[in-house]
């Protein structure tokens, strides 16, 4: 009986199954149809502009901006957005790290280097209609200088802290002194101490000009109701107002930031009328989004993906490197304290091989700790070209004819602009060092906080991998950070080098300073505190409709300069 029952049910089921299959097929057809019609709608709607291109540009960001107020930001994703909305007095010459006029048409610095008179561009308006003039300039400078309490925290106002070093309520270390309005389009900024990097520093997004009206209206300086964690202001979460080609539309946290063209922009507006930063935190997912066509481009392409993306017809654009990857030495370790050993290791490393085998295309071999676009780059430094025989000789002279064993620290599961795949770099160097008799004990650790803690905060490390991405054309921002004082990372004390760096930083004359840095770079190359390995170049990938992208070594990329073909 149960058998018969089953067979009856079986027939019923077969019918249902057929119906089900049919249902699914129809649903699938509907889905495809809808997706397609939507795409058609989009291009249709956007094709209405005077140019025949889709004027909406979608770029994948790896994270939300931390703050829409660039003065309170220090991360790349915040600046990527703020560079579209804001402009500074000083801009960056396309494709370089050199300053050029932007909102200031020109400037003149006094003999002593302390005061700079800016002549401002006329007829510039902020997105809210406020005039950009000398009052606005001084309003911004005074705003930064007069920050108090929480606003002064390094995590909050990182760049002002690091570059201008002091605030109105404790002016002892402050570099800024005052700003004077000399007329509608003339403003003079006076510094308390010479600061040769003043003009290039002003090209940083953190020092962009913001609308005084909006800053006040949306209480930009009211951050952090509680002392536990700083809380962003109303301005920084939804009302940023600058003079740039794009104005802020909306920010759907975790999903996207939308900007639209500012019709009264003073400069070239370009083809893009709407910019969307879509937040996709997974690197793999960014690539897939590009392949699926939902985004037009993304940054920091994994080295392994470059070739396959190119082959598939995508445009891969490499920035000029503004990075340094180095092999650090802990001089507290007996062997590494010996200059002969350090020299031997310098000769033992085949940088060309390392670069071609483990680093992205466009990466340059490093001979010093600054990229060649930075002032003070010295063509004449010791280069220690790959010579394993010489390395062995030097090791023997140092008393290690059979080599030695040493700890090698490297981070895992992390990708930095200057080191996309640390594990590969480690493996490569491990093999090279083994060839001259140096056996390394691998000591991997998770990037943050373990690795950084261990390498920068303790003495428990030997050789290690680390690097840096520069912010702007400032030599001190590279070598001053590394070798300006005694640090557990390197564990050496070299008063001569420390004072030379200190002196160079305080010089007011740019040419004189450049010369000083050239000498310092020579000095560093002889001392070998660490080995500069490479200047890895970060790449971006774009849909093939993007025919030109203004790649910049310092990420000064404004989307109004993008060219689209369809």
């Amino acid at each position, binding site marked *: 009986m149960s058998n018969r029952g089953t067979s009856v*049910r079986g027939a019923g089921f077969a019918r249902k199954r057929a119906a089900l299959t049919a249902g699914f097929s129809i649903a699938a057809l509907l889905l495809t149809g809808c997706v397609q019609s939507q795409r058609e709608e*989009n291009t249709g709607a956007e094709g209405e502009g005077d140019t025949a291109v889709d004027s909406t540009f979608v770029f994948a960001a790896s994270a939300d901006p931390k703050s829409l107020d660039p003065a309170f930001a220090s991360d790349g994703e915040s600046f990527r957005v703020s560079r579209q909305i804001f402009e500074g007095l000083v801009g960056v010459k396309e494709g370089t790290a050199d300053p050029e006029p932007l909102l200031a048409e020109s400037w003149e610095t006094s003999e002593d280097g302390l005061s700079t008179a800016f002549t401002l561009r006329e007829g510039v308006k902020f997105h809210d209609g406020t005039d950009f003039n000398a009052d606005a300039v001084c309003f911004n400078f005074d705003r930064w200088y007069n920050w108090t309490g929480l606003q002064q925290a390094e995590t909050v106002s990182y760049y002002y802290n690091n570059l201008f070093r002091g605030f109105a309520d404790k002016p002892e270390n402050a570099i800024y002194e005052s700003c004077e309005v000399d007329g509608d389009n003339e403003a003079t900024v006076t510094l308390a101490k010479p600061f040769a990097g003043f003009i290039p520093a002003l090209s940083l997004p953190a020092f962009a000009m913001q609308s005084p009206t909006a800053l006040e209206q949306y209480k930009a300086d009211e*951050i952090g109701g*509680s002392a*536990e*964690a700083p809380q*962003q202001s109303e301005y920084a979460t939804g009302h940023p107002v600058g003079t740039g080609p794009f104005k802020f539309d909306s920010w759907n946290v*975790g999903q996207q930031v939308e900007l639209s063209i500012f019709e009264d922009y003073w400069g070239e507006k370009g083809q893009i009328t709407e910019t969307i930063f879509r937040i*996709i935190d997974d690197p793999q997912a960014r690539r897939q989004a590009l392949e699926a066509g939902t985004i037009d481009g993304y940054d920091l392409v994994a080295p392994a993906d470059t070739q396959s993306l190119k082959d598939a017809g995508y445009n891969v654009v490499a920035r000029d490197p503004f990075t340094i990857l180095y092999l650090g030495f802990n001089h507290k370790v007996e062997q590494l304290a010996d200059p002969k050993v350090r020299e031997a290791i310098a000769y033992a490393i085949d940088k060309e091989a390392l670069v071609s085998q483990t680093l992205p295309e466009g990466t340059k071999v490093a001979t010093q700790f600054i990229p060649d676009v930075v002032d003070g780059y010295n063509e004449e430094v010791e280069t220690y070209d790959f010579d394993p025989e010489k390395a062995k000789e030097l090791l023997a002279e140092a008393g290690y004819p059979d080599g030695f064993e040493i700890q090698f620290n490297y981070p895992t599961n992390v990708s930095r602009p200057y080191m996309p795949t640390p594990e590969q770099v480690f493996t490569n160097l491990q093999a090279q060092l083994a060839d001259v008799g140096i056996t390394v004990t691998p000591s991997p650790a998770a990037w943050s906080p373990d690795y950084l803690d261990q390498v*920068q905060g303790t003495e428990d490390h030997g050789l290690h991998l680390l690097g840096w991405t520069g912010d702007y054309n400032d030599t001190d921002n590279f070598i001053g950070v590394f070798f300006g004082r005694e640090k557990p990372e390197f564990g050496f004390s070299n008063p001569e080098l420390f004072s030379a760096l200190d002196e160079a930083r305080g010089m007011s004359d740019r040419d004189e300073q450049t010369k000083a840095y050239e000498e310092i770079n020579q000095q560093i190359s002889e001392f070998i505190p660490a080995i500069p390995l490479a200047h890895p170049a970060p790449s971006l990938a774009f849909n093939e409709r993007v025919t030109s992208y203004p790649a910049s070594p310092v990420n000064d990329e404004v989307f109004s300069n993008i060219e689209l073909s369809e």
Partner: protein
Amino acid sequence: MLRVIGKRLALLIPTLFGLSVLLFLWVRSLPGGPATALLGEKATPDAIARVNELYGFDRPLLVQYFTYMGKLLQGDFGVSINTGRPVLEEFATRFPATIELTIVALIFAIGVGVPLGYLAARHYGRFLDHSSVVLSLIGITVPVFFLAFILKYLFAIQWSILPPDGRQNPRIDATHFTDFYVLDGILTGEWDAAWDAVLHLILPGLALGTIPLAIIVRITRASVLEVQNADYVRTARAKGLMERSIRGSFILRNAMLPVVTTIGLQLGLLISGAVLTETVFAFNGIGRFLRDAIFGLDYPVLQGFIIFIAILYALINLIVDLSYSVIDPRVRVQ
């Protein structure tokens, strides 16, 4: 009934208190401090000290705990270290996304799982049964992220049938006020936005629903097998009751008890699965946010989240218990 609910809710208080203590100590014993995570390679000892002072991480544990609990009782979960926004606000914007996703996953898991498990039991030992057992085994063993990748690769990239990531096509200008995108689209009459949101839910929903689906299939199958051989079913048949009412009122209803329990338990699994699914599909829900909080050692978010989930769990269990009484009259009497 009300007394039962009241009693259960009262039990929540000591549970949450104990949890808050454990949580507080656990979070602070994690290796490395939040200061290093915040400052990254730009961390200098000075900067670390300043950050610790700023956030109160240098104060005695007891003081930190009382400050924390005091605020918590006032409904203040603090401000996220990563984003600088109030934790509660962050949850409020992301939770609807995870709920939408969970609902789709559940509909898929229950809608396919229960009938499949039932059919497998009815066809015990035959092809349909074997294949459903094998399929559910595969469903349980395939890691969520792998399945998510495969689904995404095939449907979004290879065939371009469904969107690869996010909750909405970036080019669609949709109005959002509840943050339930499908609901928003329906309420505002923006049908294209609602449909677009539905399309964005399909792949992550399938990926997330697969493991619960597999488990529901197995539980339903086992439960139906047990019930359909029970004495009272035989009696009902012998009595000459219609097969349809035997299946409906006797077999399915009685077999549903363990299934409902399982579904309740699956909800927890869905949340942890959401961490992976949401990451793969760049889906802006609680899961992805939690992952960022773990990586960034975002203490306030972690604390707030776990307390929040504990409350949610307790409520789900309560609902499951109450639903027993709907299905099984004997529970009502007890």
